[in-house]
């Protein structure tokens, strides 16, 4: 073995505080050092060339660079090593600057001593490093779009244009989602069906899009950019199943069917038969039988449709068809449900026929010119805004964004068709923020629609007249409005569709506090989710109108196209692995991994699925045989690092080992260093992927090697890639605390904290307080340590 050690002056930032000559001399005393050099700027072209030349000429097989924090140049040096033909993973960066020369700039002697210990850690760790291979996964062109509303439709068309193979799955019998239910759209009053239908037709005809309707996703599994999907196609009971041309939509069955039920597409204002097409403009335009209400299924008492069908296209025996396929990326466009108006019983939706929802009003207005229309509106109509939204009493504090405008639209459409109707909109705020919105709102007022600023408190029925009486305060005139209305429209808000829950569970997505699907970052990653390869579009991510939905759908399609353009996906090799000969098949590791990365192979040995493993290290403490380890942060490496940190500790000195998680605590310590803020130098930071990496065994070893206390730092839960770490780490700590007590060691010796990048002062306080506290305890004697060894 030949280790190359490079001490960087960092343009004076390091060398002005740390005496690098002393450190260099120390390095010379270690085993297997091939070369030890001091250089002014290791990250420069010259510095890198130095490493490359040394590797080639001196046959170095391991590298240590003592310089700034690894977050800056770890990648740079890895690339240099690759150029020299050496595996990039036999590298250790020692943090001389952020963790030593900067915080200790006023104490150069102490800094130099600490630097010796730090480089000791680096050398002992790299001694146990070995070459690791990068993992590459091949991707293809397959995309799943869940939900065929306007978002799913737009995304599918964009993806098909880019040459992707799209599988579009819709749970209803017809595509188009909620937009298809609208009469006209604001602010242009375009007919919703007119702008939607061409796109729906395109989707059906597009050779790159495989459309499945009446289909629900039942299971998803697989790794990051590779998803195995299972779905179920619910039978329509009309044959044939694949090529449905046998049914010619002649309507004879519909006419003869004796069952009439409320038409859910028409929001119940009209009826349909048990054999029906989902909508007048349904795509696919195919019939289906409603199994719940069809008499044949209920009690075998009717066969009329089958008897009258001239094509013999009715088949009651059809079964659920199972579907299995694999895709590389997923777009979730599962849309919204309206908030249930029964959550606000003060409005009497369940009791009064003339209290309707906004969506019902869409259908009423759409049919208002028929002779006769299915529902009349009367002379006085009231709209109530913010029903179910902005309401802490029912737990929905968010604003549903579209209701101000859709009420204005419905009022305007109604006013145009029925000019004599007196229309009032009861609001708390009118949110007309979009392009053309304010003008549209003004036009509504111009048409004579009256906006009253006051939330309706209750609706009651006058027992004498059976008319609806509505009570609200007009907060602008301070009068209490108590008046009869013929029709009351509840502008109900939006919530995430219930059917999204199974998708969220199986893809391991999360919800934001408003109950919609959580995006990766609200501002600059609004269509990504925290699961790689899964994107979200449309109202599933949050309430929005059609233009925003279409924009977001195209955005998610663009993200997919960009991701798949790479063709190959690289995975960091810092992963867990199982030593097969140590594994006894007890399966304890399987439930320990929050990413479900463990499986048993046919030899009944545990195996890590490398595409799922995120390298957190939580599994390691679950194996009673110590068969699991983590590449790049192995047990032996951590023990060697701890040993090296404590090797030169004097009897009267105190040393605390801080196991810092890479994403948060380590970075925070860097920031503290950048600000040149001082904290107790007796704290030695060892980088780990997460707190849960530190098993009880490792903690015990740390004490046995001479640590006075252990600190473990994790990322705060809400920002963490490993949110399970806190619970697991605390469990591990409890195990060790028990043993520590039994061995007679006094005081609290293990400290766990959660950090985020802003917590500079907290870091310093906790660090200093910990050392102060530990100094008050009695020293850990050899006898106590021996007892600890025994107990463990």
């Amino acid at each position, binding site marked *: 073995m030949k280790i190359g050690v490079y001490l960087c002056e960092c343009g004076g930032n390091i060398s002005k505080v740390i005496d690098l000559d002393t450190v260099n001399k120390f390095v010379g005393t270690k085993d297997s050092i091939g070369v030890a050099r001091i250089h002014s700027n290791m990250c420069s072209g010259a510095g890198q060339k130095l490493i490359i030349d040394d590797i080639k000429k001196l046959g170095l097989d391991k590298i240590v660079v003592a310089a700034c924090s690894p977050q800056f140049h770890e990648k740079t040096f890895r690339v240099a090593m690759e150029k020299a033909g050496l595996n990039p993973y036999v590298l250790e960066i020692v943090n001389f600057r952020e963790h030593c020369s900067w915080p200790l700039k006023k104490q150069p002697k102490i800094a130099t001593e600490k630097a010796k210990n730090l480089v000791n850690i680096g050398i002992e760790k790299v001694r146990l490093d070995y070459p690791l291979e990068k993992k590459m996964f091949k991707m293809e062109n397959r995309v799943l779009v869940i939900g065929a509303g306007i978002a799913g439709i737009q995304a599918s068309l964009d993806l098909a244009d880019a040459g992707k193979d799209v599988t579009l799955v819709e749970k209803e019998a017809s595509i188009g989602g909620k937009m298809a239910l609208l009469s006209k759209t604001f602010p242009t009053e375009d007919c919703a069906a007119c702008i939607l239908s061409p796109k729906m037709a395109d989707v059906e005809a597009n050779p790159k899009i495989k459309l499945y309707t009446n289909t629900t996703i039942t299971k998803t599994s697989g790794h990051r950019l590779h998803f195995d999907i299972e779905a179920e196609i619910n039978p329509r009971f009309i044959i044939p199943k694949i090529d449905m041309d046998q049914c010619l939509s002649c309507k004879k069955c519909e006419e003869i069917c004796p069952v009439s039920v409320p038409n859910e597409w028409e929001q119940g204002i009209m009826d349909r038969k048990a054999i029906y097409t989902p909508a007048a403009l349904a795509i696919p335009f195919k019939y289906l039988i409603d199994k719940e209400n069809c008499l044949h299924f209920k009690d075998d008492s009717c066969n009329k449709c089958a008897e009258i069908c001239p094509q013999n296209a009715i088949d009651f025996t059809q079964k659920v068809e199972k579907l299995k396929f694999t895709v590389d990326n997923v777009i979730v466009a599962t849309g919204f449900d309206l908030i249930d108006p029964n959550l606000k019983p003060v409005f009497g939706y369940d009791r009064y026929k003339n209290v309707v929802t906004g969506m019902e009003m869409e259908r009423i207005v759409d049919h208002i010119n028929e002779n006769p229309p299915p529902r009349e509106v009367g002379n006085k109509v009231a709209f109530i805004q913010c029903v179910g939204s902005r309401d802490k009493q029912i737990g929905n504090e968010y604003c549903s964004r579209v209701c101000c405008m859709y009420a204005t639209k419905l009022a305007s459409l109604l006013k145009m068709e029925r000019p004599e109707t007196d229309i009032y909109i009861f609001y*708390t705020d009118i949110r007309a923020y979009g392009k053309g919105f304010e003008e549209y709102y003004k036009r509504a007022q111009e048409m004579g629609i009256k906006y009253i600023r006051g*939330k309706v408190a209750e609706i009651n029925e006058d027992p004498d007249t059976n008319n609806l009486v509505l009570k609200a305060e007009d907060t602008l005139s*301070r009068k209490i409005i108590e008046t009869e209305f013929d029709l009351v429209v509840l502008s109900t808000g939006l919530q995430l569709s219930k059917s999204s829950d199974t998708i969220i569970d199986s893809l391991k997505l999360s919800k934001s506090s408003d109950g919609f699907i959580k995006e990766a970052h609200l501002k600059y990653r609004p269509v990504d989710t925290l699961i790689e390869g899964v994107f979200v579009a449309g109202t599933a991510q949050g309430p929005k109108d059609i233009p925003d939905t279409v924009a977001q759908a195209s955005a998610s399609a663009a993200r997919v196209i960009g991701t798949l353009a790479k063709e190959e996906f690289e995975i960091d090799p810092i992963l867990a692995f199982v030593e097969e000969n140590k594994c006894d098949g007890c399966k304890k590791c399987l439930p320990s991994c929050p990413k479900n990365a463990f499986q048993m192979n046919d030899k009944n040995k545990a195996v890590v699925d490398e595409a799922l493993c995120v390298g957190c290290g939580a599994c390691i403490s679950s194996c009673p045989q110590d068969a699991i380890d983590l590449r790049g942060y192995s047990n032996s490496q951590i023990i060697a690092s701890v040993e090296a940190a404590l090797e030169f500790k004097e009897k009267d000195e105190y040393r605390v080992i801080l196991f810092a998680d890479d994403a948060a605590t380590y970075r925070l310590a860097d920031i503290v260093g950048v600000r040149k803020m001082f904290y107790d130098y007796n704290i030695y930071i060892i980088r780990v992927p997460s707190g849960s990496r530190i098993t009880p065994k490792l903690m015990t070893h740390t004490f046995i090697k001479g640590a006075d206390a252990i600190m473990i730092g994790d990322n705060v839960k809400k920002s963490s890639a490993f949110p399970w770490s806190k619970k697991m780490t605390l469990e591990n700590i409890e195990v060790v605390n028990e043993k520590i007590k039994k061995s007679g060691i006094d005081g609290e010796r293990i400290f766990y904290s959660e950090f985020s990048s802003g917590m500079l002062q907290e870091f310093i306080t906790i660090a200093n307080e910990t050392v102060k506290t530990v100094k008050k305890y009695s020293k850990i004697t050899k006898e106590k340590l021996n007892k600890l060894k025994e107990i463990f």
Partner: protein
Amino acid sequence: MPKKFIIDKKSVDFFKKISELSGEIITLCDQCGTCSAGCPVIEEMDITPSQMMRMVMLGDEDVMESKTMWLCATCNTCTVRCPRELDVSKVAEALRQVKLRQSMDKLNIDKIPKEELAELPQIALVAAFRKLTS
């Protein structure tokens, strides 16, 4: 006749006092009017409950001269409906307490005829004394 109102230290102090005494975050009131619309005694009031909230937020001490806070029976209809979960009855109580703690009683028991007092149940008298006297 629109009235002029100047927001000065006195009014801010008044706002702070009522906020503390009621324990409610008055600035959360978005003036939606739900409280007023559901209030059973609204027809007797000179200012509406939401108007009372607005005057407190501005720190307008004229609110103390209104009938409204004395008419509040603490029925809590407003409380269970406020979309911001504010308790308007607590604000009315705070306003009453400002007067009552200065011994400015609203109820003068001598003014009530003896025959009426005789038939009133105890509970009515206790509650009236609690809410309307110091």
